[in-house]
């Protein structure tokens, strides 16, 4: 490579070049991308249905797509999974806006369903004729119903709450370790849970913490209430919401007393803590059990157990829907697929495979659910625990920005735990960020 130096004009040329480059780069910021539409059917009537989802829906693990292909030899199902829902959702909105790149079936998380119902319902097929909404737990399908009565999503799972805890650590710390005894110790609610934490801390095995993250406890508290971040008219009321205040105060207390390791959930550090076995309890929506067993690994098998949530509160944390965009080429086939995937038998199969709990009531009567025990968690009778709880979960009022509000508050709780931010300052930052998000 040889570059010959130029003479006096260089400075000006540099300036011109700089201007060009910066213009070009400013423009790059506004660039966008689109997926190409591959042809999804051939001459023999064989079609490929694309299912876009995030995290872990469990269909692959339960072998359901292969089974569907056996039942319908002309249909092949392809799954496109985005690991993080936070990356998945903006992409979905973009695809809905441009009308290109959409899958035939798309997953939608409960934290987003309200926004999708309010702003995008016209872009999804109405499932009210295909599925019987009364098959689901009463509030689940209401969340996916638009004002005009169209149902845009079929419920997949729900997240009834329990408490996952390490039996061996509890024993070492001199706490009761039997699941009934633990449930009794925290029967008074989350305040009791913190008291148990203080007891644990006194004799805690070195290097271990009572809980993984106070934000998880906060979320558990909020999700047990019908009023969370919005009121029934769709106005954000998180500042005055009682459940938010209660959850926040409890989290601040846990942070102040250093009962928590202060790890944001689902981060590398959190995974590592589970692998090393440094946390004694995790607030445990049904799907969390799968996360714990994957991350903790074989060495902790049988050392975990599951008891009822503190105060036996019925709460729902998480859960998703499957929706069919209208613009797809195979809306009819996709609708059939959604109906089949969310039917009791299939939901039970997914529950058996990865432990996410069915939202279809019919599944609760099936042996796979009713008698389900988790070997990893010392054979905890999770089917019984959750099915009972699912009946009494309150109908939560959802809001458009629930997801962002939850994440922002969780992050500030983590600042209290990890950086020692004062609760008042953390709350102020949280409200500033949230107000920006509500915009």
């Amino acid at each position, binding site marked *: 490579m040889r570059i010959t130096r130029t003479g006096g004009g260089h400075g000006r040329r540099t300036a011109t070049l700089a201007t060009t480059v910066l213009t070009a780069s400013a423009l790059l910021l506004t660039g966008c991308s689109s997926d190409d539409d591959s042809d999804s059917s051939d001459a023999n009537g064989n079609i490929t249905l694309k299912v876009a989802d995030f995290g872990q829906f469990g269909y692959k693990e339960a072998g359901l797509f292969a089974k569907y292909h056996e039942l319908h030899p002309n249909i092949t199902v392809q799954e496109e999974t985005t690991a993080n829902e936070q990356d998945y959702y903006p992409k979905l909105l973009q695809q809905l806006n441009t009308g290109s790149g959409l899958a035939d079936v798309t997953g939608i998380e409960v934290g987003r369903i309200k926004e999708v119902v309010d702003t995008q319902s016209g872009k999804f097929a109405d499932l009210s004729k295909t599925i019987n909404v009364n098959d689901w737990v009463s509030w689940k399908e209401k969340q996916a119903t638009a004002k005009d009565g169209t149902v845009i999503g079929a419920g997949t799972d729900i997240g009834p709450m329990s408490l996952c805890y390490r039996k061996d650590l509890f024993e070492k710390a001199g706490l009761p370790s039997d699941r009934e005894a633990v449930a009794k110790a925290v029967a008074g609610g989350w305040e009791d849970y913190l008291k148990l934490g203080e007891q644990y801390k006194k004799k805690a095995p070195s290097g271990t913490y009572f809980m993984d993250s106070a934000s998880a406890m906060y979320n558990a508290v909020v999700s047990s209430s019908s009023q969370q971040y919005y009121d029934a008219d769709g106005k954000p009321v998180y500042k005055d919401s009682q459940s938010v205040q209660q959850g926040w105060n409890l989290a601040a207390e846990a942070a102040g007393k250093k009962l928590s390791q202060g790890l*944001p959930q689902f981060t590398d550090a959190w995974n590592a803590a589970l692998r090393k076995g440094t946390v004694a309890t995790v607030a445990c929506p049904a799907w969390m059990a799968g996360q714990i067993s994957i991350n903790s690994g074989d060495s902790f098998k049988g050392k975990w157990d599951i008891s009822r949530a503190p105060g036996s509160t019925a709460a729902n944390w998480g859960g998703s829907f499957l929706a069919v965009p209208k613009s797809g080429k195979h809306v009819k086939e996709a609708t059939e697929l959604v109906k089949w995937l969310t039917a009791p038998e299939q939901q039970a199969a997914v529950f058996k495979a990865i432990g996410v709990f069915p939202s279809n009531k019919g599944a609760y009567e099936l042996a796979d659910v009713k008698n389900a025990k988790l070997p990893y968690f010392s054979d905890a009778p999770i089917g019984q625990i959750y099915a009972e709880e699912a009946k009494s979960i309150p109908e939560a009022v959802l809001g458009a920005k629930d997801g962002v509000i939850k994440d922002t508050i969780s992050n500030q709780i983590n600042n209290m735990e990890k950086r020692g931010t004062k609760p008042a300052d953390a709350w102020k930052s949280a409200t500033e960020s949230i107000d920006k998000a509500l915009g």
Partner: protein
Amino acid sequence: MATTTPARGAYTPPPGGTGAASNGRGTWRSRLWRFDDKASPYAYIAPFFLIFGAFGLYPLLYTGWIALHRVEMTSLDQSQWVGWDNFAKILQDSEFWTAVTNTFVIGVISTVPQLLVALGLAHLLNYKLRASTFWRTVILTPYATSVATAALVFALVFRADGGILNWVLHFFGAGNTDWGNGEWTSKIAISVIIIWRWTGYNALIYLAAMQAVPTDLYEAASIDGASRWQQFRKVTIPSLRPTILFTIVISTIGSMQLFGEPLLLQGGTLGSIGGSEHQYETLSIYLFNYGWKLGHLGPAAAVAWAMLVLLLLIALINWIVGRFMRKSAA
């Protein structure tokens, strides 16, 4: 560049043509010639301007239009005129100013060491070396890796829990640093990624410029008894001045758009807000979060324009400094 285009305006009829017939055809052809002469250049340069218009100017103006409207991610087809509200919103947002500060701080602590090291490396490579092509290729390899790869690997290095750096540090009695969580440690970590990636590139540019410095200058200097260090300071550096200015401009633009490294240092939710207390949030991250995570495209577009204005300001300062330097050199 001194090239001359043949003047075709004066049409001379081909030899052998006779009389009135060729005369009428002649004026027509003459006009065609003249038209060709006037229009063709535009056709030649048209592709650039068409592409620039479609992918450069149009998005720029459209971004400006969005910046003056309320446009939501959930309903891109609807927009509502809000005037300068979006700009007011971001300028009153303390997070914006945090992002501006972070961008400049990271820019400085990554650019300055980077260019100094590059200068040193280039100087070393300028000596007669065995396998010099090999070394020159080697220092360019970091530049050939993608931002994402580099950032993800360095994220493992800087991890609080089981990161390589902390593991090394624990032999010296340290090693409990949560790099991504700290106000300064996170910025240093990001700077290290940038320095690693760009030093070789800048070194090669300096090297190319150094090789263009006439050798008789060095010979004269050594006859005068100048040491190596004096030669470097008194001959190499002044000759490299325009090149140094160029690399500063390019690095400044690069650091202004810093995105991948901070996004991926901790990743996930934390990455998209630039750390739990925005300790390493850059302007691009702020823009991304506002537009894509919060779904408000108006303020995000306003941020894009604010970045453009900041860059123009920097370019202006650079230009003034450059002029001043040339004047004082003369």
